[in-house]
């Protein structure tokens, strides 16, 4: 079927009562302070996520057992105003080197604090992958895949 959906980017803004450079630092170096603990990838319990502070740096999660799981990488490193990350997790929360969605975060001084704008874009690329997977299991239009998901989940 040719009817495809191109989802709008996810956009979120928040105002932080902290200086711009500080906000950038807590977002990057301090990511372990705020990253939701419930979203660990891999089998090991999450210790903390790490963003390597340079363009081309890795973005990964470290498990309590010392194991590492990639989330993506740093595409642009412009402290204290901008960070561009590649989010390379598929809808099943598995790292996929061929999948690149972008998370752009900007930090703008505003009043007595900082406005932080986040945009997660190119989500349709996750759909391309989902569609490929659906084709591999021979389910046209993803319809069979949806029903399969439903029956698997309801059996649990």
């Amino acid at each position, binding site marked *: 079927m040719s009817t495809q959906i191109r989802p*709008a980017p996810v956009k979120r803004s928040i105002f932080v009562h*902290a200086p711009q450079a500080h906000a950038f630092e807590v*977002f990057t170096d*301090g990511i372990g302070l*705020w990253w*939701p603990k419930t979203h660990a990838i891999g089998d090991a319990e999450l210790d903390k996520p790490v963003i390597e502070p340079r363009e081309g740096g890795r973005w990964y999660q470290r498990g309590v057992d010392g194991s590492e799981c990639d989330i993506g990488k740093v595409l642009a490193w412009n402290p204290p105003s901008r960070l561009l990350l590649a989010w390379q997790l598929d809808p099943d929360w598995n790292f996929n080197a061929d999948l690149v969605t972008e998370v752009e975060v900007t930090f703008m001084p505003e009043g007595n604090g900082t406005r932080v704008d986040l945009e997660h874009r190119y989500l349709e690329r996750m759909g391309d992958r*989902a*569609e490929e997977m659906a084709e591999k299991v021979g389910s046209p239009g993803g319809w069979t895949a949806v029903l399969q998901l*439903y029956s698997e989940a309801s059996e649990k």
Partner: protein
Amino acid sequence: MTNAARLISALADPTRRAVLEKLKDGPRPVGEIARGLPVTRPAVSQHLKVLKDAGLVADRSVGTRRIYYIDPRGLGAMRAWLDQFWEAALDAFKLAAEAEAKKTNKKEGE
């Protein structure tokens, strides 16, 4: 609700599954979807809304009519999930950044 939970709850209702079945062979307006189903047209619209929120169907306007079709990739649900994820993450980030900023201020004031 998680992505999977939303999908399951959307598909748990037999009428909603019947509505999806009707869209299997291509886009349809509400009237055509409601035909042959043992529920009212407003009820069908309500079911379509739930399916849309779950990212299972999408709609578009054709003239004065609204046409519904299956989202072949479930991206709506994925997007809804990420939206929720970033909202929670940024709230936690704000708390962390402001707590750290307070610590720094205290040190400087001493």
